[in-house]
């Protein structure tokens, strides 16, 4: 079935002490899709992301990226192969400005090699100008222009999340993993962001793999949606189908709150 799966997770398990966070889980993400991943708190979604992105080595099982076994590869190696992720809890570089946070993302900057930075200053400078321009564009899009010179550690919770998202726009990636980018982000801005994600998917061919608790967003963007619970995949399909599944609705959505 995984003919055109860009990410293929096969029988992956991960335990923390006595707790099995991911339990023999298999799933795949099709090239060019925006795949959603939902499930109750503690279902193991972020752990699965960590495994796919190389931040955690699974106890057993395999992860295939573009048809190749990448289990156990370091995050920076996966980045080089075109995988980019965001973090649920913002991982900003707190002592660097917002702009610098974005400028450090592009790979293969000649200035990052000691020899080049000593001996080929002109090349370094040319690339640096390019990177800065790109970063400024992204920052404006995220409406963070006025805080671009602020230390990232001093940004508000939501602004950090936006920065987290901004990183994915700094490079051309094959696959982007988004871990709850919407949490804490203002809804109006979120509309623009969603539109941009759709655009990147359609026009630039990015594949997105999205963890989200915001059902409106999932409903608008994602097809298919994968449901995880207790470390296992329990369902997959379009949102409408998921909503129709009584068990999931009971376990995951609950009943709407009464107005006072």
């Amino acid at each position, binding site marked *: 079935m995984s003919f055109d799966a860009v990410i293929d997770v096969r029988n992956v398990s991960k335990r923390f002490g006595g707790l099995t966070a991911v339990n023999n889980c298999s799933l795949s993400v099709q090239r060019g899709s925006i795949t959603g991943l939902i499930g*109750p708190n503690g279902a193991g979604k972020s752990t699965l992301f960590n495994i796919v992105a190389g931040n955690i080595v699974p106890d057993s099982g395999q992860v295939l990226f573009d048809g190749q076994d990448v289990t156990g590869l370091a995050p920076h190696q996966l980045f080089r192969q075109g995988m980019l992720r965001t973090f649920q809890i913002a991982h900003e570089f707190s002592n660097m400005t917002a702009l610098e946070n974005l400028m450090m993302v592009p790979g293969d900057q000649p200035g990052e090699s000691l020899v080049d930075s000593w001996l080929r200053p002109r090349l370094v400078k040319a690339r640096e100008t390019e990177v800065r321009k790109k970063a400024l564009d992204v920052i404006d899009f995220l409406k963070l222009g006025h805080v671009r010179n602020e230390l990232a550690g001093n940004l*508000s*919770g*939501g602004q950090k999340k936006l920065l987290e998202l901004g990183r994915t726009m700094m490079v051309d990636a094959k696959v982007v993993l988004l871990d709850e980018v919407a*949490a804490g982000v203002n809804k109006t*801005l979120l509309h623009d962001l969603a539109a941009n994600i759709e655009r990147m998917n359609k026009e630039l061919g990015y594949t997105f793999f999205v963890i989200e*608790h915001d059902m409106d967003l999932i409903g608008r963007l994602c097809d298919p949606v994968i449901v995880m619970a207790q470390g296992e995949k329990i369902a997959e399909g379009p949102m409408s189908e998921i909503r129709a599944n009584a068990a999931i609705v009971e376990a*995951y959505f609950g009943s*709407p709150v*009464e107005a006072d």
Partner: protein
Amino acid sequence: MALIELKHVVGGYSSVPILNGVDIAIEQSDIGVIVGPNGAGKSTTLKAIFGLLKVTGGTIEFGGENIANSLPDKLVPKGLSFVPQEKNVFTSLSVEENLEMGAFTRKDDYAQTMAWVYEMFPVLAEKRRQPAGELSGGQRQMVAMGRALMSKPSLLMLDEPSAGLSPRYVIEIFETIVRVNKEGVGILMVEQNARQALAFASKGFVLASGRNRFTGTGAELIADPEVAKSFLGG
């Protein structure tokens, strides 16, 4: 007289002010919800009330007394309580010890309050000996709220209590908040799940750039097309 009243509060982390005049008034029976774009100063407002940053202008009156720039260990005995958005439980302490820490400022016997908290969150009574670090996200949020309630506050402040929670927990948490409010505790909270929160809020405040932009009941704000478009995502 309002339980808490912020009049044109100005303040910030350094010399540059983040709050440029915030006005908020909450009664004991109110659930107040602050909404607004990212970086508007919502969290900063709560921190300013709680003495965690410098207020340089305006007044914050709580029970008729100006409490601007008082520190938490003075404010908690007066009846204020605060649940930060993240890292809001002591992970290495047991659930019961977490609750005790909430009662640290109390000199009287707090056994009754603890029973009340356990009654409200029965699942916590089951896990009272377990370290809070081993609980799920939703349970932690209950511990955090329980801890804040242990000081018997008249005003409970919450910073994005629903962020990161799965829809089911969001509902639960909001229900709990309503319940706590019915027990006679005023609520002031910041939310990005704005529509849902404003639905049961008795007062709503829209902040932008450190200033009030709209104030009204929750229903009024939801109904206001301008607010809905600019702040609630249409």
